[in-house]
């Protein structure tokens, strides 16, 4: 068994993926930054000076303190504090964790939906394809953001504010997953259509293999590179979507803030000069999304799949 794994490792070491990664400084830096941010976010309980969820640690007297280096700053709060007196660095660490959780969760959900529906639509064709893709078309023409807003509004109205706040993480994963599955489904369908025409699929049919076996063992593995690329980009999109929903008040409550709800709560104080409450979480969000997008770009260039346009 060790011989096999060794050869896998060798295969990876000699692969074009690894070769082009080593040569691409942007990709290396992006990955390092991304890994550092993920690590910091998930180690938030260890790294953060205070626990923003713990009301006992918050003193309202400390509200709206600027970051270190500016007049009136307090060395205990290197990035300053927000309007409730919470340490901004701690809230950002915890907020990044929430944003990442929702981003990954939503992408897992939409990938499951998108791969399943995309495979079915592409391989079976006919009526199944027509119905699934019509739904996807309508959803996409409304834009994923609009669908997420509508679904979010419906959820909020039917669960009530309090209930919504308690299970907001799961609901947001659900909302974004539902809103964005067509992106993945269309990509999967397009590559299934391309693969389906290839003769190895005919060969499998001629062998008498059943449809599920052909779909999952023969076609699915060959659509993985475009799925991989689009899923990476979709993590970035999901994080942005979450931030947008939170900014509109349809996302994470302020007691359990994500980067988006931090930006929103800070926005109310921007006119009074406390720019850091909104702009520092904003910067973190942009860096996070940017490195994911850069990694996605790099992957797309290397794997070079034909992605569905639009």
């Amino acid at each position, binding site marked *: 068994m060790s011989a096999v794994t060794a*050869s896998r490792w060798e295969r990876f070491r000699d692969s074009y993926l690894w070769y082009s990664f080593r040569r691409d400084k942007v990709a290396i830096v992006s990955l390092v930054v991304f890994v550092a941010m993920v690590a910091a976010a998930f180690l938030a309980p260890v790294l953060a000076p205070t626990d923003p969820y713990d009301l006992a640690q918050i003193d309202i007297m400390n509200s709206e303190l600027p970051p270190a280096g500016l007049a009136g700053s307090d060395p205990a709060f290197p990035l300053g504090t927000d309007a409730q007196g919470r340490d901004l660095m701690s809230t950002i660490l915890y907020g990044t964790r929430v944003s990442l959780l929702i981003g990954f969760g939503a992408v897992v959900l939409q990938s499951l939906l998108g791969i399943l529906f995309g495979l079915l639509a592409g391989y079976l064709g006919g009526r199944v394809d027509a119905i699934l893709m019509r739904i996807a078309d309508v959803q996409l023409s409304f834009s994923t953001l609009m669908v997420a807003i509508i679904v979010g509004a419906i959820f909020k109205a039917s669960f009530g504010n309090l209930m919504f706040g308690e299970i907001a993480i799961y609901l947001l994963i659900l909302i974004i997953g539902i809103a964005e599955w067509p992106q993945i489904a269309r990509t999967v369908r397009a590559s299934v259509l391309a693969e389906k025409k290839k003769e*190895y699929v005919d*060969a*499998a049919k*001629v*062998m*008498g293999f059943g449809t599920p076996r052909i779909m999952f063992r023969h076609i699915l*593995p060959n659509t993985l590179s475009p799925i991989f690329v689009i899923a990476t980009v979709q993590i970035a999109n999901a994080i942005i979507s979450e931030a947008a929903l939170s900014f509109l008040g349809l996302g994470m409550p302020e007691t359990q803030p994500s980067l988006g709800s931090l930006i929103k709560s800070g926005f109310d104080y921007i006119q009074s000069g406390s720019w850091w409450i909104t702009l520092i979480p904003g910067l973190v969000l942009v860096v996070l999304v940017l490195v994911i997008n850069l990694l996605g770009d790099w992957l797309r260039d290397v794997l070079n799949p034909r992605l569905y346009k639009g």
Partner: protein
Amino acid sequence: MSTAQETLVDIRGLEKRFDLSGGLLDQLRFRNGRIERHQEHVHAINGVDLSVTRGEALCVVGESGCGKSTVARTVMGLLSPSAGEIHYDGKRIDDLDHKAVLPYRRKMQMIFQNPYASLNPRMTIRQTLEEPIRFHQPELSASGVEDKVAEVMQSVGIDPDWGKRFAHEFSGGQRQRISIARALAVDPEFIVADEPISALDVSIQAQVLNLMMDAQESRGLTYLFITHDLAVVEHFGTRVAVMYLGRVCELADTATLFSSPRHPYTQALLSAIPRLEDDRPNHIRLHGEVPTPVELPSGCVFHGRCPYANDRCRQEIPQLIATDGGGQVACHAVEEGRL
């Protein structure tokens, strides 16, 4: 034909249409002030009767769009016929369900045109070859499967030690060998080969043709060989069927067809082969283009390009008739003795 020769595959009155017109809404046309429903079909095969004798290599030749690949794919069950029947060893197989057709999947196999697309790029060669054996012979032990894989790999001239490699690590010719090995892995008796060498370079074509002939000899295979290349047919085929726009226009022993072609289209096709011997092409020039199979011409499908066409050819569809050489030809001019 003598009755001692056993018919293995029998294609009877085969027709295949592909619907082009899409949904009901696409079919609506505005014509002469009225809305009409207008349906369009590609008539890929229009009544083909062919029987493949056990042990022979029946070649089907024709230009693109003549329906030769559709015949191959329909025989293999990749497409279902619009009309007609396909019999294998005396039993009708085109209307069987997935389970009932399984035994025939072992007996009938297929080799494809494009060696770069016919192997699954995410599977190693060993996985590609093991899967059909395991599927069709679940009783075989792991070592039995391994032996079988090694045996077929050797028989097509691929070193069994290369089994761990992926398809992209092989050249086009090697991939086509592996593709043949996959077909042979389930011990078939009948193989449909759809343009198996036309994507290969000249020097590799000879290798693959030799391999197929060796396999035929050692395993007693029967071939249905689809190609556009008449030079290959002359070398490889026992009998030849020439197709044009979804119909068989001539069927004969290879030697007979090449020495005395009867149908005007066969004659033109033969004269179009660039030969090494001549300095000058002196081919028969056909005027015009192949009509689209969407709106078939009336009568003989070839009449628009045929120098011998008369009114009867434009109206009446010619049927295959026996010729002196033992072949069959569908041509009014031959029947009437004009040609």
